[in-house]
C-alpha cells in the first residue's frame, strides 16, 4: 500500500546551513497533519519543498505514488495559504477566488458556480465585490483559503496562516478550518509554532527541531510519551530535575537526586551508563501534594511550598526542593483540601507510576 503523501529523506541546505536534514514522513489521504516547532526549525522550508519553491538537496517527495519533484509548482495542483496576506490586490474577492480557474481556462458558468460555492464555504457570501484592501486580516485569510480550495486540490498547505491575527479571531478561524477539513476531506499540512493550535487542530503532529523531526504522533502521544527531552519541554508544561543514573536495566533506570534520595525503576529514553547525568521530567498536573514524611507517606520528593496562585479552575503552586530545584504543580481547585496549602509548608510530592520519565543528558 502506498500512502498519499510520502516524504522520503528530504534535505535542504542553504550554503553550509542545513535548514532541513533527512526528514521522512508518511501522510494518509484526508489527514490533518501539523508541523510544530520553534522558529527556524525547518517547517516552512519543508512545506516550500512540497510546494515546489525550493528543490530538495536530497530525497524525494511522492504524491499518490508519483514523484512531484520534476513538476514546477504551477503544475503540482497543490493549494496553499501563506502567513502573509497574498491576495492579488488588484482583483476583487470573487476574482481572486476565480483566478486559479481562469488560468485553467474553465468555462465561465463553472467559474461563477465554484466562486459562489467557495465563498459560501468560508462564509463570505456578501463580499464578492470587495477589494482585498477593504477586508480585515481574518477575512483576507478566508478568501485566501477559498482561493486555495477553488480548484479542488488534493493537498492543502498552510504556513502559519493565523499568526498575524489576534487570539479571538484565531480561535474562530481554527473552528472554521476544522469544519472545512471535515466538509471537503482535503489533506492538510499545517505549519504553526503555537502548540495549542497544533494540538487542537490536527490528527497528528510532527515536531521539528533543528531541521529534523523529533517525534510524529497524535498530540496526546507527544504529551504523554515524549520520546526526547526536547519534545517533553516543547509540548505542554514540564518540570525537569537534575539527577544521576544509579542503575540501568532495559528501558528503566534507578536514579539518585542531589539530596541522595533514590527513586527506582523510571522509564528512560535511551541507554546511559551508571553515574551519567539525566533529567527527571514530570508534568505539573501529574504531581500530587501530600503531607510530608510519615509512615504512610507515598514515595516521592520533599519540597517547600514557595508560592500559590489561584487561576480560576486551577491552583498553581511553586515549590523548591531541599537542594534548590524548582517545581511547578497545577491542580484543579476543587481537589484541594479545604484548608489549602500555605506558603512555607513542607510537603511530599508524589505521582502515579509512568508519569515520571527520565531523559539521559
Amino acid at each position, binding site marked *: 500500500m502506498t500512502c498519499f503523501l510520502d516524504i522520503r529523506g528530504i534535505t535542504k541546505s542553504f550554503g553550509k546551513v542545513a535548514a532541513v536534514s533527512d526528514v521522512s514522513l508518511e501522510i494518509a489521504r484526508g489527514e490533518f497533519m501539523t508541523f510544530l516547532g520553534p522558529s527556524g526549525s525547518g517547517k516552512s522550508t519543508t512545506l516550500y519543498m512540497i*510546494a*515546489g*519553491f525550493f528543490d530538495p538537496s536530497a530525497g524525494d517527495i511522492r504524491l499518490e505514488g508519483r514523484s512531484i519533484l520534476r513538476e*514546477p*509548482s*504551477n*503544475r*503540482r*495542483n*497543490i*493549494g*496553499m495559504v*501563506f502567513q*502573509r496576506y*497574498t491576495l*492579488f*490586490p*488588484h482583483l476583487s474577492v470573487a476574482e481572486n477566488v476565480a*483566478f*486559479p480557474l*481562469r*488560468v*485553467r481556462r474553465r468555462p465561465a458558468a463553472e467559474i461563477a458556480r465554484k466562486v459562489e460555492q467557495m465563498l459560501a464555504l468560508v462564509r463570505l457570501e456578501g463580499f464578492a465585490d470587495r*477589494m*482585498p*484592501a*477593504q477586508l480585515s486580516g481574518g477575512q483576507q485569510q478566508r478568501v*485566501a483559503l477559498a*482561493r*486555495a480550495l477553488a*480548484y479542488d486540490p488534493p493537498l492543502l498547505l498552510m504556513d502559519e496562516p493565523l499568526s498575524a491575527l489576534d487570539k479571538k479571531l484565531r480561535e474562530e478561524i481554527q473552528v472554521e478550518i476544522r469544519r472545512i477539513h471535515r466538509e471537503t476531506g482535503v489533506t492538510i499540512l499545517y505549519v504553526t509554532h503555537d502548540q495549542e493550535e497544533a494540538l487542537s487542530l490536527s490528527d497528528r503532529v510532527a515536531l521539528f527541531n533543528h531541521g529534523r523531526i523529533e517525534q510524529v504522533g497524535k498530540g496526546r502521544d507527544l504529551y504523554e510519551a515524549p520520546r526526547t527531552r526536547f519534545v517533553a519541554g516543547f509540548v505542554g508544561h514540564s518540570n525537569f530535575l537534575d539527577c544521576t543514573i544509579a542503575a540501568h536495566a532495559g528501558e528503566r533506570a534507578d536514579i539518585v537526586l542531589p539530596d541522595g534520595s533514590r527513586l527506582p525503576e523510571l522509564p528512560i529514553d535511551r541507554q546511559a551508563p551508571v553515574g551519567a547525568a539525566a533529567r527527571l521530567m514530570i508534568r505539573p498536573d501529574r504531581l500530587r501534594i501530600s503531607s510530608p514524611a510519615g509512615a504512610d507517606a507515598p514515595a516521592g520528593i520533599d519540597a517547600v511550598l514557595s508560592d500559590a496562585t489561584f487561576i480560576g479552575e486551577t491552583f498553581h503552586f511553586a515549590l523548591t526542593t531541599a537542594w534548590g530545584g524548582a517545581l511547578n504543580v497545577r491542580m484543579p481547585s476543587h481537589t484541594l483540601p479545604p484548608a489549602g496549602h500555605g506558603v512555607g509548608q513542607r510537603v511530599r510530592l508524589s505521582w502515579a507510576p509512568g508519569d515520571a520519565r527520565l531523559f539521559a543528558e
Partner: protein
Amino acid sequence: MTLSHAAHVPSPARPRRLPAGLAAVTPAFALVAVVFVLPVLALLLRSVLEPEPGLQNYAAFFASTTYLKVLGNTFLVAATVTVATVLLGFPVAWFLAIAPGFWSRLLFAVVILSMWTNLLARTYAWMVLLQRTGLINRTLMNLGLISEPLPLINNLVGVTIGMTYIMLPFMILPLHATIRSIDPSVFQAASLCGASRWQAFTRVMLPLTATGIAAGALMVFVMSLGYFITPALLGGTSNMMLAELIAQLVQSLLDWGLAGAAALVLLVVTLAIYAVQLRFFGFGQARS
C-alpha cells in the same frame, strides 16, 4: 478596472481648510510663478500680439506642412522612445528589485551614474558610436552583416537611439519603486494557483505595475516632446523636432510670435496628456 480602486481605502470626509505647511511651500510657488508662469504668459501674449493682434501665428503653424511634419516627428520620436524605454526598462527594473544585494547595487550605481554624467558628454559619445565610421557600423561591417554603413546619425533613428538611452533612468526608477513594493509571495501564490510564468506576468505583474509604467511613460513622453540637445546633435536638418524648430524660429528668424505659438501647442499637448494620465491612473499613486 484601475488600480486606484484597490488603493482607495474609504476615508472620512475632511473639512475644507488650508493645508498645513502652506507657508513652507510659498517660496517654491513664488519661484515657479516668476520663472515659469510669467515667461509662459509672455510667450502666449507674443504669440497672439506679434506682429499684430490675432491668431495668424497659429493659422500659419497649422497651415504649414513643414511645421506639421515637425510636430509629427516630435510625436513619433517621443512615442517610440517611450515604448522602447518601457520594453528595455522593465527587465532592468525587475532585476534591480529581485537581484541579490551586490548585483542590484552595482546595476543601480550604473543607472544613477549614467544619469549624473554630463548630458553633452553622453550625447557626443553616441555620435562617436553611431557615425558612418563609428563603432557600431565598423563592427557590423567587420562581421559581414552589412556591406554599406547604416545611416544611424543625422536622422530620427539616431535621435531615437540617443534619447532612449538618456530617458531610460526616468522609466527605470519609478518602475523599480513600484515593483519593489509588490510582495514577492504574491507570485508564489499565483504559481501554486496554476499560473504559468507568462500568466503570472500578464495577470499579476503587469496590472500591479501599471501605475509605475504609466508614471514612467508620462515622464519619458513629456520630456521627449520638448527635448533639445540630443535631437540637435544626433538629428538631421531635414527632420527636426519641435524644440529645434522653436530655437531656430527665435535665434535665426527672430519670429517670436510663431515660436510662441509652437511652444504653446507643445504645452497644451503636454497638459492634455497629463490630464488623461490623471484620469486613468489617479494622482501620486505609483506606490499604493
